[in-house]
């Protein structure tokens, strides 16, 4: 066992007492340290000023009597002004530099309960900076009873408890630095760059913003954060209105977006202001804007440009001033080319376009988001669930591997965490729980694959399972072109366009028919769907 050395100031008030037996009924921190049955002080470096020399001797005698194990080392240290930070820090630094500390041979405790608060702060700083190579020692009187012994505890500034405090500081400062990033867990440098840029734009511009990226990449979450940021900076005062355009179909789409007058159509029993109106002075987030019908697109464009629009059945225009954020997982440029998206609206939106990568391209973000989702689960369900170490490693190993496709991006991750958290026994996710979740995800993505390429409706499960991935993409693309074409011949021309250009004659239709036959398919089966 290494000898233990305590370094501390003589407390001119706390260590002071009457010169008589009654002093043993008083808590004196410097004496109390040496009376602890579970702390053995081998050397006590007691710092004191010249005017307190007599008290120091007296305290030293008492320490010797209660603690024969302790060697007392009285050191005089005089301050012109013990409340002067510079002087106290300087003298203590000199002391620390001159002292032949050897943490290999001795353990050190720095007592911070006595001395002026300036001295305490300086001791803390010197300990934190490792000039004093020890732990902080804190003492206090016993509660409820009169005891000269009191209580003690140590604070190791190197240990994790302090780390967690430091981490909290770091989080707080990062939050003020980048409001957007907090709440969006990322370690991905590219994504970080995008967020920085969006923050810049959001704070300087009222122009529409277009967020592109796959479903579940976090577009909606990001839009909401942009709104909160702008609200914090008092740039928007109204509400945040979020609409998924894929859910707006037919007649009701117009009315939902732009509102209607009472009696405009059957069932229009009362005036409806519409979502644009609700977003007045606020922010409108149109998710999946590529799914919006052409008529609605025209109205939206006018609403952005003139801040005016005509509710269904109204003869007077309504006004709404809102910031638009649009989200899409489609390539809008392509949609414009195929005539399903208005070029003028696209041009208006395509000023600030940001492409959010899917989770599969941000694999380093899976781990922080895993913790984030566990926190969210705890908040939502009021139950804190955690992984055991092995289970966490196993889950992460799968999650960041190329086996994990994360087709639903963060939505998949959130659902996965929710499932595991719900099924975990006693709030602990174990290896079994992870294994069955991994199996569930694999199945999900296998299925998602079939839905994506549209082959599931054409071929039986057995036929699909027998298909090589190599053939599958080829067939899927062929089917897609067929469906976009009016006839077998037209499809053939598109599919074999390059070889057609090289060779003057070829029977493209026949070639396509033969290709389809290989999979037991014909034109009518493919085109019907």
């Amino acid at each position, binding site marked *: *066992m290494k000898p233990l050395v305590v370094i501390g100031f003589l407390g001119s008030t706390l260590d002071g007492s009457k010169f008589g*037996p*009654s002093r043993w009924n008083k808590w004196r921190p410097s004496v109390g340290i040496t*009376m602890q*049955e*579970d702390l053995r002080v081998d050397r006590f470096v007691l710092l004191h000023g010249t005017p307190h020399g007599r008290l120091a001797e007296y305290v030293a005698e008492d320490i010797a009597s*209660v603690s024969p194990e302790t060697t007392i080392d009285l050191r005089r240290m005089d301050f012109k002004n013990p409340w002067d930070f510079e002087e106290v820090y300087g003298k203590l630094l000199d002391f620390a530099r001159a002292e032949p500390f050897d943490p290999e041979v001795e353990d050190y405790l720095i007592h911070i309960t006595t001395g002026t608060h300036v001295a305490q702060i300086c001791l803390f700083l010197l300990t934190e900076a490792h000039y004093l190579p020890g732990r902080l020692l804190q003492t206090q009187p016993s509660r409820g009873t*009169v005891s000269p012994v009191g209580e003690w505890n140590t604070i190791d500034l190197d240990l994790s408890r302090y780390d967690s405090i430091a981490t909290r500081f770091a989080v707080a400062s990062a939050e003020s630095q980048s409001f957007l990033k907090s709440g969006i867990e990322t370690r991905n440098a590219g994504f970080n760059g995008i967020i920085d840029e969006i923050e810049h734009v959001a704070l300087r511009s009222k122009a529409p913003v277009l967020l592109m990226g796959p479903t579940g990449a976090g577009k909606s979450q990001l839009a909401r954060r942009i709104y909160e940021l702008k609200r914090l900076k008092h740039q928007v005062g109204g509400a945040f209105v979020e609409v998924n355009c894929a859910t707006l179909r037919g007649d009701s789409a117009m009315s939902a977006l732009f509102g209607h007058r009472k009696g405009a159509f059957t069932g229009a029993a009362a005036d409806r202001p519409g979502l644009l109106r609700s977003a007045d002075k606020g922010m409108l987030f149109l998710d999946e804007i590529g799914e919006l019908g052409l008529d609605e697109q025209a109205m939206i464009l006018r609403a952005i440009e003139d801040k005016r629009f005509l509710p269904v059945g109204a003869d007077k225009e309504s006004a709404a001033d809102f910031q638009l954020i649009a989200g899409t997982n489609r390539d809008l440029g392509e949609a414009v080319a195929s005539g399903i998206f208005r070029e003028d609206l696209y041009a208006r939106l395509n000023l600030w376009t940001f492409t959010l990568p899917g989770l599969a391209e941000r694999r380093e973000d899976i781990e922080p988001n895993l913790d984030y989702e566990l926190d969210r689960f705890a908040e939502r369900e009021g139950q804190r669930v955690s992984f055991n170490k092995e289970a966490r490693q196993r889950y992460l190993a799968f999650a960041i591997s190329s086996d994990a496709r994360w087709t639903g991006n963060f939505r998949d991750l959130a659902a996965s965490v929710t499932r595991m958290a719900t099924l975990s026994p006693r709030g602990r996710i174990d290896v079994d729980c992870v294994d069955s979740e991994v199996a569930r995800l694999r199945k999900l993505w296998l299925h998602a694959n079939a839905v994506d390429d549209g082959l599931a409706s054409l071929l039986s499960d057995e036929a699909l399972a027998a298909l090589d991935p190599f053939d599958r993409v080829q067939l899927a693309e062929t089917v897609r072109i067929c469906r976009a074409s009016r006839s077998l011949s037209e499809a053939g021309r598109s599919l074999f366009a390059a070889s057609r250009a090289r060779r003057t004659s070829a029977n493209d239709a026949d070639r396509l028919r033969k290709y389809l036959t290989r999979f037991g398919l014909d034109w009518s089966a493919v085109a019907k769907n």
Partner: protein
Amino acid sequence: MIIIDGAEGEGGGQVVRNALALSLVTGEPFRITNIRGKRAKPGLMRQHMTAIEAACSIGNAECSGLAVGSLEIEFRPGRVEPGDYHFSVGTAGSTGLVLQTILMPLIAAGKPSRIFLEGGTHNMMAPPFDFIERSFLPIIGRMGPRVEARLIRHGFYPRGGGKIEVVISPSRLAPIECTDRGQAISCSATALFAGLPFGIADREISTARKLLDWPDNAFAVRQLPEDLGPGNVLLLESAFEHVTEIVTGFGKLGVSAESLAKTASQRMSGYLGSTAFAGPYLADQLLLPFALAGGGSFTTVKPSQHARTAADVIAMFTGKRFEFEQLADGSHLVAPV
């Protein structure tokens, strides 16, 4: 190597002290785990460290794992060296407990020793000096060795600062029979106090006077020099031809003089009302010398958990078990078998 689970039985520091004494006498190394496992603050405390260090220095022993809070130590005894020793115990420790650790090994050491012990002489949870001097050591004297203890200065908790001298003239321990107290010789009640108001000692004495049917001149108050204080004990002493019983009440903050005196008086009355030779504290102390003597017997009131745990540890080192036999009058006959 003997392995002891320190959390078994009474599970306190006494297990450590007994094991040290037995190891030094028998030459058997031991390892103890779970030291003070049942206590709020488990592991070795400062006073146990002092006892172990004292055992190491008289016995040329080696001990590994020695640290405050340590839950496990391994002790390898060497040859016990009689001579002059000086040990100091910190605030919570008692000189009596260090003596308990080193006395038997030095008695068995062949040559005389002289020991100075500094620290508490009248501490709670430990036999006070008066008990060692007048209750315990005379029995040892009857077994053969001569051990004389002298109080140089009182030491009370928390101040400590007491000092005693113990001179040991070794001899073989002979088995003796201690079943008869003999005639009552004298009795006394003394309230010692230092650095505290006289009224405290006075109230202790008047309470004891009411509860004990003792002559007036048996009661006394004794003031010690102020600078030894604060400190206060009430010593009740009942001397018989073959044994002296001492019951102690320790004054401390939060315990009234009356209640302290009442508890002590009731315990003394309990002893006087029985026919047993040894009170519970003396019985604890006698197990070790009786086991080393290899025979004899004594009667006591009721064997405590302390005593049964001590008997278990003794059996591990010596192979000698104790029999606790209840007698018709309610007392127990204790004898190594």
